[in-house]
Every structure is written in C-alpha cells, then in structure tokens.
C-alpha cells in the first residue's frame, strides 16, 4: 500500500524522453504548467533533435524535456534528474547518463522489444542484464495499458499510440501528488472540436493516474510545496514568448505600431509565430523572403515611423550584417533579437551556444557601433527586449538583443509586470520644419530627429553613404568622416549614462568573482550560492549590457583576486574584459550544445580556490 501521506521534497528534476513523435515536449509542458500553477518555482529545458521525424526508435530521434521544480529557489533545469521517463530503449540510452545514481526510471515496456533494442544499438536488454541495478526501475507496459483504456472507443491504432504520453503524464501527476485539472482543462480547450482526441486523451490521462493509485507499483508518493516567490501574479513563460511580448509592450508604451520583418529560423521562429497571433494589437508581421529582406523591411518600416524589429539566429545575423551597418548609418531605431544556437555555419540549430557575442559587438564593416544587450533567463527576455527597444528609440540606433536556444525554449515562472512600472518610451517625432536638419542631434543623447514620411515640410534623404554633419547630404571629405564616425561612436558610448550600474551578487570584494552573461545566469548563481553556503569568498557578476558596458564594471572587477568567466563558447566576453580592463581573467568554456551544469561551475571554482591556497 502506498503511503497515504506523501513524502515532502524541496526540489525534483524529471526528464521525459521518447521518440520525437511521442509527444514528449507536450507532456513536459503540461507537467510544467501544472507545477507552475501550484506555485512551484521551476526551470525547464526542452532538448529535441533537429530532424522533425528522425528514424523512429533510433537515438537520433530522441526528444527530451527536463523540468526542475521545487519549493526552493530554482535557477536551472537541474544538472541531473531524479526521475527519467523513457518511452523507448533509445530514450534510455541517450539519457541514462543524466540520471542520478539511485534515481528512478519509468520505462514503457513496449519500447524495449527486440526491434527497439536493436534500433537503439543495445546488444542486450538493459532491463534484464543487470546494468540498471543502481537505479529503481519501474516497468510499465504503457502502450498496452493505453490500448486497453481506449478499447471501447474504436479508435485508429495511430490515435491510440499517440495518446500514450498522457498515460505517462498521469502516472507522474500521481507520483508527485499533482492534480489533473490543468491538463484536463487544456485538453478540453485544445481538442474541443475533436471529441475523439479529447476523450481519448482524457481517458488515458486518468488511466495513468488510476493505474498508479491502484497497482501500488510506486512505493512512495511525493509532494513539493509551493515556493516562496515574491508576492504577485505569475504565469509560466518561455524566452521566445517573453521576447515577443517584450516587443509588443515596448511598442505599446511608445505608442508605435510594431513591425516584424523575419525569416523563419530555429530556434527563433516562435517569436514570429507568437507575434503573428496578435493581429488585434495591430502587430504587422511580415515573413520575408530571406534574412536580408527581414531586416531591410524592418528598417523601411522604422523610416516610416513604426518600431521595426527582426528576429533571427546566428546564420541569419550574419546575413543581416550589411543591413545592420545601414541602420547604424541612417540612425533609425531597430530591434534585432538573436536567439543564438550552436555554430559555426548551420551548426547545431536546436542546441544552445553563446558564440555570437563577438559577431553582435564587432561583426560589421567599418566603424559600426551597436548596443548589445543579453537576456539572463527565459522571463528576462521580456525585460531585455523591452530595454533594447527603449534604447533603440531613444538613441535612434539598431540594438541587438541576445537570447539563445536554451532561453528561447526554456521556461520559468514570471512575475507579470504592471505596465505602469515599466519605463516610459517617448519617440521624439519631428514635426516642425523650421530649422529642420536631418542630422542635427539632441544635446544629451546625440540622437538625430525621427522625421517620418508623411510629415509636411520635412522631406529629406537618408542613405548608406557618409553624410555631412547636420544636413545629411553626401559628404566624402576627410574631416567630416572623422567627425561623423566619432559622433556615431560617442552616441552609443553615451548610453552608459542612461543604464543602471552593474551589481554584484555576494560580497563586493574577495577571492573569486564569477562573471557571466546571458543564459549561464542560473547555473552560475547556483554554483556561487553553494560556495557561499560553505563560507567561501565567491561572488557573481552577471552582465546584461555587453556593449556599452556599465561604467562601474572595471571598478567591480578590480576588487577580486581571481576573475572567472564561464561561457558557452571559446572565450568571447573574456576577450572584451581582458582588452578593456587589462585583467588576467580565467575562462571556463563549454561547447557541447548544452548549458552549463551548476556542478561544473562549482567544481571549477573549487579548482581555483584550491589553486589560490597553494
């Protein structure tokens, strides 16, 4: 008999893994929404193959979804999982290394038949050869139980097969004492007009729950209490959704139409998808014929007075390079969101990496400075994009906002902001023809006036050729080019006066300062917290503003014996830190298409602390 009172846990990590057609992303998302709705803090990590349907049953086709949830602060999707749900042999093979010793494996027995074992590359059945003796294995014939649950419904075998993920979900809901309501509600909404699918999924979800309740297969049941999050209203959000909403909110604040020119690219396409949904907000989305048309149409829209934006990933950013230079030259607002992926070239489209930093900061012909802002967590994509838009409009400049695949697809609870608490954005449209000069500048920001077509008396010409200071006519003279180059550089450099100072988490001086940027935030934060609990002198500085960098960064760095810079690249931020602040920072680099585990950073800090002692 299972214990009536569930055992309390602070945090749990579960990984759902199966074939890419098994619906693992959906299963993980449903579990996430339920846990979030009950007030857990959480972080998720979808890990799926680039192929839409890789050969069934092979390791290439394995799709995984990891969720780390708890009653305590959760910063990462978890280094290792406590529970692995493996829908077939390949899923087990690919994911076993990520399971804690002593962890639980729930296998779908049908996925371990001879054919599946062979496809996964097993020569012996791992369920029978004792290789899993370090784990608790629960064998459930999910396929068969699903079929039985749906027996009377006379459904096609394909539909029956597609429902089996709900059986696994039902079991996990039982195991973690979670209610079915959130998912039942979703099924009703999603399949309301497809009663067959609605009823099948409902039935199978309940069957999975009931099976766990009655068969006593699981000896223990767990409960994770709600987390102590700051008061307010929350929802779960992915990075890409947050980026889309950040753009819409910025446009709303600025009272501008939002225009998105974009070409589909993994892992950024969801931003285009999300924005395309919101016609009733007047959002204009334009699926362009290529990356270049995406950005140039956005520049055209900005010229005409909209908030122009474009979304992409590394290869697309490379294609947009020349147009970025144009945007610098014509000094129009433009928000470019780069959801980074593994590179170079086509690289690893569905995997994460932070290797576009130098491309974003330096990757253009000529002196073409562009502000670069990086998001730290999925929900922070909202803030980072909003801030990018604020700067773009106020300083009449393109801004690159860096996200990555891990943030874009990952999710976490988000304290929904109140519109009135966000900074105002006031585009300075020029309307007065008196004394109008297209390249005159605001004394403080150095921004030029935004004079949009349709405004009487402000007819003027802009373009990519060097222009004369003030009147903007073509001018190749040496002194003018020198002046204009400096003006453009000073305008961007001056943004430091308009952004908050960088803040350290932990002590303001000490042995080790871990400096990160972007999606490594959670892993670094966790690693640093663990060291601090042990009494070690370790602090964390996470940079949001990559270019220009906040005024006090040099001062902050100078207060520590060792600067450690973990990055998912071969060392890009570190190059800037070394050359700007002349410090001997130490890099810690990982280029595996995967995020850092907190433990990896924790160990690296250990290594440094040990070294410092000697």
């Amino acid at each position, binding site marked *: 008999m299972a214990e009536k009172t569930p055992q309390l846990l602070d945090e749990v990590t579960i990984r759902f893994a199966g074939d890419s057609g098994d619906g693992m992303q959906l299963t993980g998302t449903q579990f996430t*929404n339920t846990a*979030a*709705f*009950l*007030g857990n803090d959480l972080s998720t990590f979808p890990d799926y193959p680039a192929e839409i349907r890789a050969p069934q049953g092979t390791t290439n086709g394995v799709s995984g979804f990891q969720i780390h949830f708890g009653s305590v602060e959760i910063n990462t999707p978890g280094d290792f999982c406590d529970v692995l749900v493996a829908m077939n042999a390949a899923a087990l093979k690919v994911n076993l290394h990520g399971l804690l010793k002593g962890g639980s494996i729930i296998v779908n027995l049908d996925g371990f038949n001879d054919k599946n074992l062979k496809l996964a590359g097993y020569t012996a059945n791992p369920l029978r050869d004792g290789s899993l003796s370090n784990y608790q294995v629960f064998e459930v014939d999910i396929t068969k139980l699903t079929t039985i649950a749906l027996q009377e419904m006379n459904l096609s075998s394909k539909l029956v097969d597609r429902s089996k993920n709900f059986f696994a979900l039902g079991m996990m809901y039982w195991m973690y004492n979670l209610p079915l309501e959130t998912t039942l509600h979703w099924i009703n909404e999603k399949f309301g007009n497809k009663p067959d699918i609605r009823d099948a999924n409902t039935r199978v979800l309940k069957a999975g729950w009931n099976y766990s309740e009655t068969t006593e297969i699981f000896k223990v049941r767990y409960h994770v209490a709600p987390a102590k999050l*700051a*008061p*307010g*209203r*929350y*929802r779960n959000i992915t990075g890409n959704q947050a980026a889309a*909403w950040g753009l*819409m*909110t910025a446009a*709303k604040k600025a*009272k*501008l139409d939002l*225009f998105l*020119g974009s070409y589909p690219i993994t892992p950024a396409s969801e931003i285009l998808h999300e924005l395309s949904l919101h*016609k*009733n*907000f*007047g959002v*204009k989305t*334009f699926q362009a*014929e290529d990356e*270049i*048309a995406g950005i*140039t*149409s956005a*520049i*055209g*829209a*900005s*010229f*005409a*007075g*909209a908030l*122009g934006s474009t979304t992409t990933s590394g290869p697309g950013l490379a294609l947009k390079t020349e*147009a970025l230079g*144009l945007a610098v030259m014509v000094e129009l607002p433009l928000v470019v969101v780069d959801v980074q992926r593994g590179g170079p070239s086509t690289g690893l489209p569905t995997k994460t990496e932070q290797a576009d930093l130098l491309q974003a900061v330096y990757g253009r012909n000529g002196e073409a400075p562009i502000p670069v802002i990086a998001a730290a967590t999925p929900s922070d994509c909202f803030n980072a994009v909003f801030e990018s838009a604020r700067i773009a409009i106020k300083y009449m400049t393109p801004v690159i906002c860096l996200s990555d695949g891990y943030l874009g697809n990952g999710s976490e609870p988000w304290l*929904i902001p*109140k*519109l009135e608490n966000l900074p105002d954005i006031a585009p300075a449209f020029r*309307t007065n*023809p008196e004394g109008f000069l297209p390249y005159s500048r605001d004394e403080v920001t150095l921004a030029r006036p935004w004079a*949009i*077509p*349709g*405004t*009487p008396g*402000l*007819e003027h*010409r*802009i*373009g*990519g*050729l060097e222009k004369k200071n003030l009147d903007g*006519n*073509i001018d190749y003279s040496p002194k003018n080019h020198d002046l204009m180059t400096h003006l453009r550089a000073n305008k961007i450099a001056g943004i430091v006066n308009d952004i908050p100072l960088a803040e350290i988490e932990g002590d303001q001086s000490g042995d080790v300062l871990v400096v990160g940027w972007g999606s490594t935030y959670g892993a670094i934060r966790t690693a640093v917290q663990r060291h601090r609990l042990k009494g070690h002198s370790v602090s964390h500085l996470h940079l949001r503003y990559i270019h220009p960098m906040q005024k006090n960064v040099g001062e902050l760095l100078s207060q520590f014996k060792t600067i450690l810079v973990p990055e998912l690249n071969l060392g890009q931020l570190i190059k800037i830190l070394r050359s700007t602040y002349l410090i001997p920072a130490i890099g810690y680099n990982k280029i595996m298409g995967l995020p850092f585990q907190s433990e990896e950073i924790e160990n690296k800090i250990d290594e440094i602390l040990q070294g410092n002692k000697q």
Partner: protein
Amino acid sequence: MSALITDIPVQSTSSTPFKFSSKDLQSDQEVRWCPGCGDYSILAQAQRIMPDLGIPKHKIVFVSGIGCSSRFPYYMNTYGFHGIHGRATSIASGVKLAQPDLSVWVVTGDGDGMSIGGNHLIHLLRRNIDVNILLFNNQIYGLTKGQYSPTSEKGKVTKSTPHGSLDYPFNPISLALGASATFAARTLDRDQKHLQSILKRAAEHVGTSFIEIYQNCSVFNDGAFFQFTDKEVKDDTVVFLEHGKPLLFGKEKDKGIRLNGFTPEIISLKDGKFSVNDLLVHNEKDTTLSFILADMTYHSNLPRPVGVFLSIERPTYEAEMQRQIEFYKEKQGEGIIEELLNSGDTWTIQ
C-alpha cells in the same frame, strides 16, 4: 501609424495646400550623372508628372539601392532612402506596409534589381505591394566601371568578360510576368512623352508596377538602344503596345504582328493580302498574351515591343494585411497588453 500622421498639423497657409511644381521637386544637390546619361531624362520626366498625380510631396518616398540610377532619390526633393545594394525593394516594402497611404517608388537598375536584388524583386511582385518600380536597364554595370550585367547580350565584351560573356540575359518583362506582376511596362529614356505616360499609368495602378526603362549609358554602353530610339530606324524596330489597338508599326504603318498559333510573326499590309483586321489586337488584361508579347523581346526578326504589357487587378498585400488586422480587432476587440500578459494559466502569490 496613421493616427500619428493625422495628428500632424497642416503647415501650409495657402488655399491649395501641398500644391507643388516640377521645380519644387529639384533638390539642392548637384546632379552628378555623366553627360549624356539617360538618367537625366528619366529624372526630368518623373519630376514633370509628379505634380499632376494629386499626391502631396510629403507623401512621396523614393527608395533606391546601389548603382548609378540609385542616386536618383538625392535629386528628388521628396522623402528619399538610398539603401544598400539590391535591397531597395525590401526597404520599400517595409515603408509601404508601415504607412500604406504613402506613394512609394523604387529606383533600381539591371544589376541592383536583377542580380544582387533579384530575389526581393520577384517577391515584391508576387506580393503585389503597391510600389512603383523603375528599373533603369542600361545592360551594363556603370558605377563599377563597365562589367556585363544580367541583361547584357550574350557574348558581351567587357572588362570582366574580355572574351565575351557566357550568360544568357534576363528579359526583365518576362521575369516580372513570371513573378506574377500585375503591371509590367517597357519604355525608353529618349521618348519623353511615352515615358511620362507610362510613369503616370504606374502611379495610377494599385499594386506593384514594374517599368523597364531602356536607359543609355553614354560611357560604358553607349548606343545600346539607339536602334529603338533613333528617328531613322525606330519606326521599324519598335512596336508600341496600346490596349485595344492592333500591333501596327513601320514608318508607313504598313506592317503589323499577327499570331500564327502562339507565335507572333510580321505581316505586310502593303500588298493587299492582309488588312489591319488580321493583326493581333493588344489586350493588357490578358495574362497569356502578355507572356507571348514579352517573349518577342530577344527575337531579332521581330520589332521590340514597348508599352504596357499587362495591367490587371489583384488585391494588394498591404490591403489584405490591413483587412486581417481590422477583422481581428472587430472579432477579438482591440488588444490590451495587460490582458495579454495576464492571459493563460496564472496564479497569485500573496
């Protein structure tokens, strides 16, 4: 954006606000094309017809790419955007979609429009965004000082093809029609009246208008089109397409084009064997016919067709975009950001 535009106070104090003359369209910039360049005439004709279009000057935008022709916006005292190579069409698309009530013109060349910018050109045409494209075709790269272009005749000897070019040229009209253009026309820099009339037709057309303008490059490809513009010969080498009229040409108007199956051929009206009634009658609403006429272009035994090949109606992209926005505003109500952010499964922590 429209809301913002209407907020702008009318500056003019005269009773006829925004009326302007051709002279008002001349910018303060010195025109720097080579002497004898066909671009001068095109600029002059454009400045001549603009005041008659009924569009205020501040609602007109000229967008260009890179090349000799792309300097055009600097000489036109309207709003102007000199873009990057090949991208005028996509910049113009963004301008028009953001502010559909602007009159947007693209100035491009055979290299800018069909080589580096070929992709954007065909997609603009199929989308039918209401933009007027002036493609200055001089069959050469001028600004880079004389390499062959995508419209240069095969075998062209240039700096980059000292032994003759190997590529077969694009026929711009066929390309535009193949990309589902709703308006495609050809005109000549030296035929001022015809050029003006075609520019006006393009301005009136709702949807993308594509105009190929034969333009003489006096330095690198001088005389490329003299056979179609010289008084002595042009009557015999050019056939003007006019809607509802037979394809008649020749100094004495004694020759014409008829269809033999789908193949155009010249017939003589002199010997009494054929009359005007035997000639092909142009119909600019006929898509199939437009392809046949466009295909006459590189047949050396046929006169060069000039005029409006096709002018048909199809909804514009921006109108459809606006229609979707209005439809969903009506259906779902004007979007409210706070509601969006608070939508879906939310929970409150006290």
